[in-house]
């Protein structure tokens, strides 16, 4: 068999005999330099040549190998133990692989021999293979890093040297490729790159123990932000970070990650008087202690942009008010007859313009309100009020509007006065929004029911209409800006589309929440909650210690 190969492949069979010997040791040393590989490669060819001659001689006149031959044989064994070797013919078909090749690639020898050499390259690396072939056919040696395709779908990084085998006329009759597995060092290098990138990330990265809260890692941004260097931070704990926080609240947040009720949490914090978005995750590495990883993104720039945007909106809205004052005023005077009689048709047109000027004023006012709330500039004068008194006032203010739609507003009082610390004007604004909305969407002749109820230290104010209802798909976005539900059955004037956003913002500014429940064709209930001013002070948060045994 080997002789047939000899006949067919010339010098290759003896090499096959040598390279198929088992690896004698696992070599873990780093890859030799390209130059060293080159000379090793040359040695392989030289050794092959020497051994062929030796074998041929041995067939005719057996004799003991010389010392040089023994030395060369040792070198080839060492090479086989270390390197992944492939021999190809002039058509770049694999004619031989050594045991290391089989071991590294996971392919059997029979799966490899006879295949084109391109077969051991990944599809993305075929260009590299083409480049190597061009080098070889120019009679040049190629060196570089390549990926060896493995049977299991993975690959090994190899330091590769491919040498052309030339005949006496300098014609390429095949190649010898020698590879050293550098996957481990390559992976380590990639990991170093990742760590290095993490270290230089513009976001601050803080890792702290889930058990002791001891700081385990800070990247450069975090070190600079906290003014703790590499020597100092390992002596610190997460609670030493001076962000405006309530330790109990922080523990309760962390507990959610520990319990698995959340995979990651995002919240805003302030640090060094700057706003940050903190993203927190619990990582349980295979080795080492469980840790929280916090990535802090500086929001100063975003906050500044928001401020500029809000200021712009505010300025534009105010600037709009002057011309609106003139437009509305002029049309109001024309309609009043202050400028003389006008034809009914003209009056109708001016009425349309006047109505839309009113709507524009409403939009501008609502935008200004939302902007004020967003910028924290809306003033809330909190005083103790009976919500029923405000509700009755809202009904009185909206009765005329409801009558336009032939709708009656009824109120149902709670068993006892519902005292709450609120800004009465703002709650009146909320109720006016809800009642006017309910009136617009009610069926003529129906009733709007407004109720106040108290339970568990909270009051709930609800406004229910018997109207067209809100489609299920619209419910999720009903409190978002500029969301309007069409009401084809009514000729109600369109609002600003901001009313419910304002309701939500005002209620939330009071520490309450809003909700909506609707059945299309039957009606809608919008409710909001407010704390009972007479409820006992809330019991202290009884969040259990995060990890009790290690919280010291």
């Amino acid at each position, binding site marked *: 068999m080997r002789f047939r190969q000899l006949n067919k492949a010339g010098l290759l069979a003896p090499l096959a005999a040598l390279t198929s010997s088992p690896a004698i040791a696992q070599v873990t040393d780093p890859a030799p330099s390209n130059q060293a590989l080159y000379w090793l490669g040359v040695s392989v060819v030289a050794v092959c040549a020497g051994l062929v001659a030796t074998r041929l001689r041995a067939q005719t006149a057996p004799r003991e190998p010389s010392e040089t031959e023994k030395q060369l044989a040792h070198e080839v064994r060492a090479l086989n133990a270390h390197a992944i070797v492939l021999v190809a013919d002039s058509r770049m078909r694999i004619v031989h692989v050594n045991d290391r090749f089989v071991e590294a690639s996971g392919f059997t020898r029979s799966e490899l021999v006879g295949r084109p050499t391109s077969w051991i390259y990944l599809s993305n690396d075929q260009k590299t293979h083409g480049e190597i072939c061009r080098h070889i056919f120019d009679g040049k040696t190629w060196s570089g890093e390549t990926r060896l395709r493995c049977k299991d779908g993975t690959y090994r990084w190899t330091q590769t040297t491919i040498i052309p085998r030339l005949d006496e006329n300098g014609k390429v009759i095949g190649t010898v490729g020698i590879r050293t597995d550098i996957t481990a060092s390559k992976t380590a290098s990639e990991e170093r790159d990742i760590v290095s990138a993490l270290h230089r990330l513009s976001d601050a990265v803080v890792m702290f123990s889930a058990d002791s809260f001891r700081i385990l890692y800070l990247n450069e941004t975090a070190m600079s932000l906290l003014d703790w260097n590499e020597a100092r931070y390992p002596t610190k704990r997460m609670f030493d970070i001076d962000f405006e926080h309530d330790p109990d609240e922080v523990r309760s947040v962390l507990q959610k990650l520990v319990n698995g009720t959340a995979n990651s949490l995002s919240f805003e914090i302030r640090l060094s008087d700057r706003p940050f978005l903190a993203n927190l995750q619990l990582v349980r590495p295979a080795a080492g202690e469980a840790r929280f990883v916090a990535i802090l993104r500086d929001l100063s720039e975003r906050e500044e942009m928001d401020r500029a945007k809000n200021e712009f909106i505010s300025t534009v809205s*105010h600037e709009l*008010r*002057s*011309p*609106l*004052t*003139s437009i*509305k*005023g*002029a049309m*109001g*005077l024309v309609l*009043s007859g*202050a*400028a003389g009689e006008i034809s009914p048709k003209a009056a109708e047109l001016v009425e349309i313009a006047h109505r839309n000027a009113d709507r524009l*004023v409403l939009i501008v006012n609502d935008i200004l309100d939302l902007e*004020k709330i967003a910028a924290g*500039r*809306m*003033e809330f*004068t909190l005083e103790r009020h009976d919500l029923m008194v405000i509700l009755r006032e809202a009904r009185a203010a909206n009765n005329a509007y409801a009558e336009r739609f032939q709708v009656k507003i009824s109120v149902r009082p709670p068993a006892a006065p519902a005292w709450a610390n609120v800004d009465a004007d703002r709650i009146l604004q909320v109720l006016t929004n809800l009642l006017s909305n309910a009136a617009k969407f009610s069926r003529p002749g129906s009733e709007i029911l407004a109720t106040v109820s108290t339970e568990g230290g909270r009051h709930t104010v609800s406004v229910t209409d018997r109207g067209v209802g809100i489609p299920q798909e619209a419910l999720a976005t009903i409190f978002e800006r500029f969301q309007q539900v069409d009401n084809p059955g009514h000729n109600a004037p369109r609002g600003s589309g901001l009313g419910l956003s304002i309701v939500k913002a005002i209620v939330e500014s009071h520490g309450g929440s809003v909700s909506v429940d609707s059945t299309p064709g039957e009606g809608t209930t919008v409710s909001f909650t407010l704390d009972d001013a007479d409820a006992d002070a809330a019991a202290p948060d009884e969040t259990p210690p995060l990890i009790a045994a290690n919280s010291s």
Partner: protein
Amino acid sequence: MTLRILHVEDDEDIREIAKLSLEMTGEFELMQCASGPEAIAAAPGYAPDLLLMDVMMPGMSGEQLLAELRKLPGFADTPAIFMTARAQPTEVKALRDQGALEVIVKPFDPLSLATQIQDILAAAPA
């Protein structure tokens, strides 16, 4: 007897609307100025019963103007009303603290402006 109003407003159209709204009732007579300095120059010769002023005006704000007018002889107690698009509670309070009787929010309703002013004056302490 008509009430003499010194109206200071930088927006010409709003001046026109206010003039029409108030004068059509027959109960008001207006002298209008487009800026603070113009009002300071005109005020002594007019002797108004009421100062009606915009707040946000270029050069001299309504608040600065009122402070200057108060220094003029005979203007220490002249009732003053501001008209403004900004009407947050603290802003209204600041204007009242300055000596204004009330603040009318823009856009105002031209048909009820006269009534609004009369109501404010009626509610003012004598």
